[in-house]
């Protein structure tokens, strides 16, 4: 597979007041590749993703998006990115369709193309039934599907997804997982964060583990598991962040499916 970099980060650092959220963070996500960003809550996942999407400006380091530097050509870089976060709400008083039209205009899509994209995404994500209802009245799953449509609307080369399946039921989660795989097949670069190891194992070509704002382990899932000498990705993850021996009780809870 050709290793064409989609988004890359070099030496990213970010502090909020006296708290250092991220330091010396490096990452490459190539086209046609899905990379999982794994880490416990507060590890700095969201801060990293926000810097990559241009929402936050890093204190140090640089972000390149399809070779456009985020710092000097932010508009050019942002045009290539679709960003989705699990905790994003929608405009309560706009319908799902109006919301999509709004963002289409903000991304300067030509009207004909915009109509076509909206129709395709509504079909793919099965949105027709609620397209004309105000977003404030939608269920959590419907909202997140509308949100995915927003992130995919301008057909971005790079998808940055911050815990996209957070608090969703199995059906909606499946929509998202399918959509991510579909984008990979179309040669897009996908970076998503999660703390659900099963999802990561199923989706990622590569995983990057982050702890205390810096990368602690990186590689394909089998590589990481092999290197750690543990049986599962969850154990390997706990090993990587140094939490496997200190707190057996926590570990048991984690093995049931989630890391918190």
């Amino acid at each position: 597979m050709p290793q064409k970099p989609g988004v890359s980060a070099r030496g990213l650092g970010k502090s909020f007041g006296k708290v250092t959220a991220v330091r010396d963070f490096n990452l490459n996500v190539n086209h046609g590749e899905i990379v999982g960003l794994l880490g416990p809550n507060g590890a700095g996942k969201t801060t990293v993703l926000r810097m990559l999407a241009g929402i936050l400006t890093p204190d140090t380091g640089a972000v390149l998006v399809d070779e456009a530097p985020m710092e000097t050509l932010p508009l050019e870089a942002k045009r290539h990115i679709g960003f989705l976060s699990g905790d994003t709400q929608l405009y309560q008083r706009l319908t799902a369709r109006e919301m999509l039209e709004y963002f289409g205009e903000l991304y300067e899509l030509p009207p004909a193309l915009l109509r076509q994209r909206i129709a395709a995404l509504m079909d793919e994500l099965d949105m027709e039934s609620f397209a004309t209802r105000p977003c404030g009245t939608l269920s959590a799953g419907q909202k997140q599907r509308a949100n995915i449509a927003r992130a995919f609307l301008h057909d971005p080369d790079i998808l940055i997804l911050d815990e996209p399946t957070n608090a969703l039921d199995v059906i909606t989660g499946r929509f998202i997982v399918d959509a991510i795989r579909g984008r990979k097949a179309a040669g897009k670069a996908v970076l998503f964060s999660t703390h659900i190891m099963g999802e990561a194992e199923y989706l990622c070509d590569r995983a990057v583990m982050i702890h205390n704002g810096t990368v602690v382990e990186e590689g394909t899932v089998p590589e990481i598991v092999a290197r750690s000498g543990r049986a599962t990705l969850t154990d390997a993850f706990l090993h990587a962040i140094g939490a496997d021996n200190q707190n057996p009780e926590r570990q048991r809870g984690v093995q049931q499916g989630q890391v918190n």
Partner: protein
Amino acid sequence: MRPRIVWTIFRKEIRESLRDKRTIRAMIILPVLLYPMLILGISWLQNSEEEKTNAHPSNVAVWGEAPPALRSALAASHIDVKQDAPMPVKVAADLQGGHVPPMTPPKDDEDSDTNKKEKPPADTPLTLAARQALLSRKVDAVLVVWPRLADALAQGGLGHVAVLFDSTRPASDKARDRLNQAMNKFREQEIALREQQRGLKPGFSEAVEIGAANVAPPSRQAGFGLGMILPFLLITMCLTPLFYAAIDATAGEKERNTMQTLLCAPLRPLEIISGKFLAVALIGIVSAGVNIISLSLTVARIAHDASTSGSVALSQYVLAFLLLVPIVLLTTGIFMAVSVFARDFKEGQSYLMPALMALMLPCGVAAVPGLELNAALSFVPVANIAMLIKSVLMGEVSGELAFLTIVSSLMYTALAVVAAARVFSREAVLVGGGDTVRGFLGLDRIRVPRPGPGAAVLVFCTALVAAFYGTLALHSMGVTYAIAVVEIAFLLAPALIAVKLGHFSARETLLLRMADWRGLMAGVLVGVSSSAVAAGIGMRLIRPPADFARALQKAMLFDNTQVSLLMLLLVIAVLTAICEELLFRGFILSGLRGLGWKAVPLTALLFGLAHASIYRMLPTFLVGLFITVLAWKTRSIVPGMIAHAINNGLIAVLVRVRPPWFHAEHMQNVPWSWMAIGALALAIAYALIGSKKTEPAAPGPEMLSAAAH
């Protein structure tokens, strides 16, 4: 900034707001209901009260012997004589015995207002008894008739009566009016009788009849009552929908986390704030329109009912509406800058409440009776507009004060917009919750060599307000020193302090470098010619009143012979040129440079505005334009200083020395020949510097990012 993007954001904000019941309620429903309810309600209450008193006859106790003619006059004036509150026996005995002196009439009989303010007479047994009778509510007033009234009248002598009433009771006040009317009628009858009996002509005793009519302009009469409370009401009502819309567009987006979807879209912070600002401002402007329309219809309805002469012209409403626009813009800027700090809607409300209070307080100033707009008040934000609306509704507006008010209001608005734009470029505010003051003021930013447009506007406004109040404060100092102090302390100092605080490069910002001979030559040429052209065009287009030039010359010391010509030149030409050039062509032009060529007319416009007069605006704008082009092309402050100094010095010398070929007339009406020569000189000057290749003094990308901040 891309207008299409701003338009898209604007449309979406408007659409969302129109679907918000709170905004609609505050923007349309409330004003439509408020004015009719308030004004009609008040006048209905007043009318019904008045009708009630008019419909009922006044109950009056007559203490003493009233002759039949007097009794019939009372009956004719709608007065019922009541027996329920008889005179106490003791008082009656005193009165009958001649122990009660007659009461003297009040000084100004006709003016009830004066009467009310007058000190009440010392209590006597008679007045105490009358007070008691009135307190019992059995009668509305007491008519005291001194003994032997009929005899005195029959003999052609002076009879005595007195009306005792309680001004705080409308019914008693009415009774007094009726009694006065009845007594006047009775007196006129008596006088007519006497004149007839003695064979005198009617009018002999009256001698002079004094007519009177209230000639206050009808608009003032109608506007007076309204003017007191209306500015306050109008402004408050316009601000209410802004309150919700501003929070919704800022804190609301943060609460729902939709802000980050905007931030990761290919948008500039300035586009986001512009779209939102315009949408919120439009809501305020529509609200202002609805308020004014509702108010005008209500007033028209009352005027129709009362069929009084008082009415407010359409143009007055239009003016009042136009004056609300700067207030709406100012408030929008402040509200958005403040509410974006809030994390959610609730927090937004608690942040905006103090801001709303702070804006409404100066509005209250306009409601203070007797306080009218003056030069000092015209610079107080919000209060100035409130006062101006008051004078507009009263139908009297001073052009100069209105100009000052509007200029200063637009200035404060610009500051508020700059603040809002600044807040929106702070990611700490947009993404998270708070921000540090240092961070907001830009003190911890990466240093840039030159200031941005925001800093330029900030320094301009600071300098202008400081200079304005400074001039008032320094009035006693003597004009020469006052001008010198103003120039140095209020115009030069802000520019220098801003350079220091912003850690800008003084050389780059203030263009502190020498120009070559062509630049210097151009400076001299512009100096000798700019005023001839500028005044020639400016004075022809906007003609100042005759005494304006004289007042100006006095203010500028030109005809003050106590000041030596040398001193005059030193202050008016040299000092002024140095200080004003460093501020305008130095700091402000550098700050605006990021906007491209527009910086040149903008700098000239600010220069014109700074002269704070509608008549000097155009000529000073033109002179400013000529000089700004010099600084822009040569990238040196020196040619501008030379031109400015020569320009000012030339005028001073001409007015002082008055060479035989120069007439005062020439100041107002610059001869065409002079203008032609001036234009030629300007052309040569710009040809000189235009032919020269301007060195690219590194305006690169860092300048653009500085401009965006």
